[in-house]
């Protein structure tokens, strides 16, 4: 690893494929925990928050909410004395997303250091990494790193003599996508069913055990020590002018591309560069039919959208969401009805069962698609699906799960309506045209 790499690829600079993650000594040798020292010794918690705000780091969990702003919502210790929590959202379960796993499995000390610096910024008394249960390797590596950090005095009582104390725990989940929704995650962490909570009050005011709580994604947090070390101007510059947003982004590609994988690139890199340069394009003989910019809950985009910069605002303008920024490419041999059926199966199954539109609307959506897939679609089915996309849109269901489910469906209906129409039974189609007449 070279200094060079840590300049341009701060998140992954220390990761060498096929090699065990760095232990504490090795990590410290390449500048690890410098940010903890700097923050605790040279900066006030407010300074750290300010630096993150100025870096324009936007949440990498999918919604792109500015991380510094979120921290700023936490009331001051004078206003709300007592316990407060930092929670790392490491529940990565969005289909097509595989970035946080890499960060935690391959550089656990970076994760731990991030938690300490972020915890300091909000003066957390306790921090949790809410890790999805299936990430066995990540749990092992994180726990080892935490033990080392604790022994070295980076965690626990009076950290580095700063007077501030925080302990850090890995909480492994027991499944369910909805645990990734931050308020459901809090319920799950409290040992409850992972139903989301209403906002307001936001977690920053009343979160875990009713106390101020910040929930951040793994990748968002991992940027923090680098911002502290190198400053916000440096961080903003990492985008190489490709975006308004700062930093790098872990981009990736899955599906039938030549070289699927994950790459740390300047934020705002185009989808075309990701697919054609880094992933080497589609497998031989296959053409790109459509792509999801960042997980199952984002709208499909088309090949003509490939030149868009992969950042939050640009992708939003094109009618989708950058989401997690890991492309899923759909090749031309796929039937979109089946692809969407697969996605809606996921969303229906993963509904928490709290609100009506999601709990009962998604299974209906899924069953309609199954019928269509079998050629048993009926006139009115497409309209029924369209009604779902309207009535499961944001603000109608309780949380963002069901609206997420509607994104691939509505875009597939927009771009590939013919494929859906073709599943409507011939005989019914005549009736339908009569009815329409």
């Amino acid at each position: 690893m070279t200094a060079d790499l840590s300049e341009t690829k701060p998140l992954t600079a220390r990761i060498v494929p096929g090699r065990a993650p760095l232990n504490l000594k090795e990590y410290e040798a390449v500048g690890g925990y410098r940010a903890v020292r700097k923050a605790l010794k040279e900066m006030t918690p407010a300074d750290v928050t300010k630096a993150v705000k100025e870096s324009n780091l936007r949440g990498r969990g999918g919604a792109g909410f500015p991380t510094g702003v979120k921290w700023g919502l936490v009331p001051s210790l004078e206003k709300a004395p007592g316990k407060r929590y930092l929670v790392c959202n490491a529940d990565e379960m969005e289909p097509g997303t595989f970035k946080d796993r890499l960060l935690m499995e391959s550089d656990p000390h970076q994760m731990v250091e991030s938690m300490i610096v972020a915890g300091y910024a909000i003066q957390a008394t306790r921090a949790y990494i809410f890790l999805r249960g299936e990430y066995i390797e990540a749990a092992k590596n994180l726990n080892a790193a935490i033990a080392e950090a604790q022994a070295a005095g980076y965690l626990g009582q009076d950290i580095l003599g700063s007077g501030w104390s925080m302990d850090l725990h890995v909480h492994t989940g027991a499944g369910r996508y909805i645990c990734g929704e931050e308020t459901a995650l809090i319920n799950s962490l409290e040992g409850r069913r992972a139903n989301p909570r209403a906002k307001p009050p936001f977690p920053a005011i009343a979160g875990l055990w009713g106390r101020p709580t910040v929930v951040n994604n793994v990748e968002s947090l991992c940027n923090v020590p680098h911002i502290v070390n190198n400053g916000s101007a440096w961080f903003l510059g990492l985008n190489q002018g490709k975006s308004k947003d700062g930093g790098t982004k872990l981009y990736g590609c899955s599906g039938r591309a030549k070289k699927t994988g994950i790459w740390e690139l300047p934020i705002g890199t185009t989808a075309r560069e990701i697919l054609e340069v880094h992933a080497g394009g589609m497998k031989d003989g296959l053409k790109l039919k459509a792509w999801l910019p960042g997980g199952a809950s984002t709208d499909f985009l088309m090949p003509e959208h490939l030149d868009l910069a992969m950042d939050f605002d640009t992708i939003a303008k094109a009618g989708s969401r950058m989401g997690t920024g890991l492309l899923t490419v759909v090749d031309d041999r796929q039937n979109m009805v089946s692809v969407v059926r697969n996605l809606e199966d996921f969303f229906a199954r993963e509904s928490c069962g709290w609100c009506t539109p999601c709990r009962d609307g998604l299974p209906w959506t899924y069953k309609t698609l199954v019928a269509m897939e079998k050629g048993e679609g009926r006139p009115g089915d497409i309209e029924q699906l369209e009604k779902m996309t309207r009535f499961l849109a944001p603000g109608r269901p309780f949380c963002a799960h069901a609206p997420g489910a509607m994104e691939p469906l509505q875009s597939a209906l927009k771009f590939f309506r013919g494929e859906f129409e073709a599943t409507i039974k011939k005989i019914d189609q005549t009736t339908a045209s009569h009815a329409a007449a």
Partner: protein
Amino acid sequence: MAIIHVDGKQFTVDGADNLLQACLSLGLDIPYFCWHPALGSVGSCRQCAVKQYRDENDTVGRIVMSCMAPASDGTWISIDDAESKAFRESVIEWLMSNHPHDCPVCEEGGHCHLQDMTVMTGHASRTYRFTKRTHNNQDLGPFIGHEMNRCIACYRCVRYYKDYAGGKDLGVYGSASRVYFGRAEDGVLESEFSGNLTEVCPTGVFTDKTHSERYNRKWDMQFAPSICQGCSVGCNISPGERYGELRRIENRYNGSVNHYFLCDRGRFGYGFVNNADRPRQPMLRRDGKLAIVSPEEALLNGANLLKTAKGVVGIGSPRASLESNFALRQVVGVANFFDGHAAAEGVLVKRVTEVLRTGPVPAATLRGIESADAAFVLGEDVMNTAPRVALALRQVARGKATQMAAAQHIPEWQAIAIADIGQHHKHPIFIATADATRIDEIALETVRSAPADLARLGYAVAHAIDPASPAVADLDAATAERASRIANTLLASTKAVIVSGTGAGSESVINAAANVAWALHAKGKSVELVLAVPEANSIGLAMMAAPGIDDAFKAIESGRADTLVVLENDLYRRAPKARVDAVLAKAKLIVVDHQLTETASRAELLLSAGSFAEADGTLISNEGRAQRYFQIYDPTYYKPETAIRESWNWLHGVRAAQLGQATVWTQLDDVTAEVAAVLPALARITEAAPGAKFRITGLKIAREPHRYSGRTAMRANLSVHEPRQPQDADTALAFSMEGHNGVQAGERPAALTPFAWAPGWNSPQSWNKYMDEVGGHSLGGDAGVRIIEPAANAPAVPAYANHVPPAFAAAAGEFQIVVSHHIFGSEELSTKAAPVQSRIPAAHVALNAADADALGLVDGALVSVQLDDVTVQLPLQRHAALAAGTMAVPMLPGVPFAVSGSRAKISGAARA
């Protein structure tokens, strides 16, 4: 107050409400499921969607859930908006995609909130063509039926059962479209308030199993405004009758008393009305057997018995109306009228009455309890003596979370945020009783000791609050410290309730509780008293100030009197069997009752009285609230041979026959008026409900909903000609669907509202149409009249009680009896209901575990217990918490009469 704009119209609402509640309070209809006025908002069903606009110029707006949006000043919404309407219809359509559409066989049909909302949204045809999910059902015990396929997953059941009522054994399982609501496994629901599930559930998942076997629709039921007879709290109920049987009891909203909830004793204990062995015609003893006679013959015989008597004694009843007690008083003469409580209990009830009437602290309403932020329970196991009070105390504890959330500007209706912020924080409640209680978990601190020590603690607390109240001599340091802790906590409250009553069997305990309340009052604190008494009209009877039952017995025993008239009372519940046997052996006995009690079965003349289902009357609750219950149906309509009359009617008839005069009282109002005139303390009971002359636009109030069906056929086994409906001279209610039906909300006075119905609202949710604001008070005022209030000129420094008892000392070889109570089994009438019978604990006695150890007695050992003169064999229970040196003797079938404070001896084998 806030101004909001709904569909272009401007309204003033309570800005602290959410929009749903505010709109419903305005009389506007928005469909909803998961919201409930007592449970707050969680936003899960998404049924209450409306369009909200930024301001008057915003034409786009966005859909919001009205239950989750504050009714803040300057809010612009539309309920009529087309997109919102379509969305609301879709919500029903989604819910219906799994609902079995089994309305024809569903016991919720006709009073189903889901049906109402379906109609309200206009969803009428179904497009869903796929399979529905199905569930297995559970056996939840004798009270509640379970049909999970009907579930619409509104989460109300668990929110009510767990969060509101503190139940532990109902939960939600699974996820996504397969969420399941029930117990972790089949079994009896443990909560004493499980019955409210039948009303909280908006569809037919949880239904009243006691109604199941003889089911009928709500619209085919005849109702009356009534008062629960199960304890002294006086919850308002809406019992329903069909074919001459009481079929179901539902909650009747009273904004000061029970509001939305009843306890299971009150809801499911009505079976005594229907029991076959009830005396339904008067009976005279002939050849040693009771034989049916005509009413006229009965009256003549009654008159003769009195005329030929050497001396007459009348024993009244705490479970009979004021009117009936008064009629007895009149027929036997004031000097010969006696209190019907057990002797010791009668003394306690009188003391409670005195405390409330002479002291400076008012009795709390149930709603008043809920607004307190500290409570001290002294001696009373309210879960078993006045169950609804226990549910109210839970709300005291929960109030802390609401208060903490309010500090963060989170409104009262944000149920989940409040629970989250509150965590385990509770308003302080101290529970000092002889044994563990079922609400100990809400207590900050519990104390277990013998009644004398409970009283000493109470006196010490009072003294710590106001040194002018008597001090406790020889107080141990730990108790002194505890007393000052309790005192300081109560002093730190903004409103405290002090809860006690007759349950501990100790006047000292009542006095001590009074002192605590009075001391707080003397210190200028806001405080209210809850004093539980044994029966529905205990206070009323006590206010008639008759001498105790012992004197009645003595009059017979001494030979001064030889004729005994017993009103609605089983003397075997009031004194040891041997004594009652002896008294009855010496007396000619007239019994007026609706139950064939052991006493009634000894009668010379048994007059078949009406129960609360066939009679009207006035009761006074432990809050000092006079409330009227009204006859539900006329039993002669189906069985013309029936000769059931109100007890006052029989007794007045006997008197008239005795005097050879015509009857003076022709209707209830006559009696009530005379009671009020003769007994100044009861002067205001006439205001408990409008009298028989009351009319709305010239009409009586219908007891039956206007779709009541089958009337022309229901009596066809007797005659195919439909007779005139029975006439009700006593009240402003009609035995008919003809009459005023409350189509306009609030038209019927609360005291005369037999059932809730409003256009479009058939379910119990229709009560919300009868309130000044949803969840508030009844339009026109809550039913009943408080006839006991502290005197306006009560002295600032009250006359403290000052008989501090000596500390309890366990006596070798003896135990002090503490009579214990059980919600199922200790109350006479409900114990006769079959579903309740299956919940009655087995007869037993209990000792402190260490005491049992000392005797070498294991749990379940059969022991010989000597109580007064009787010795009985009963299984022993070891109670870890029961005060050492005491023996808990439960008031249960199979356990002999016992008196708290007396002593028992025990012997027995360590045989399990």
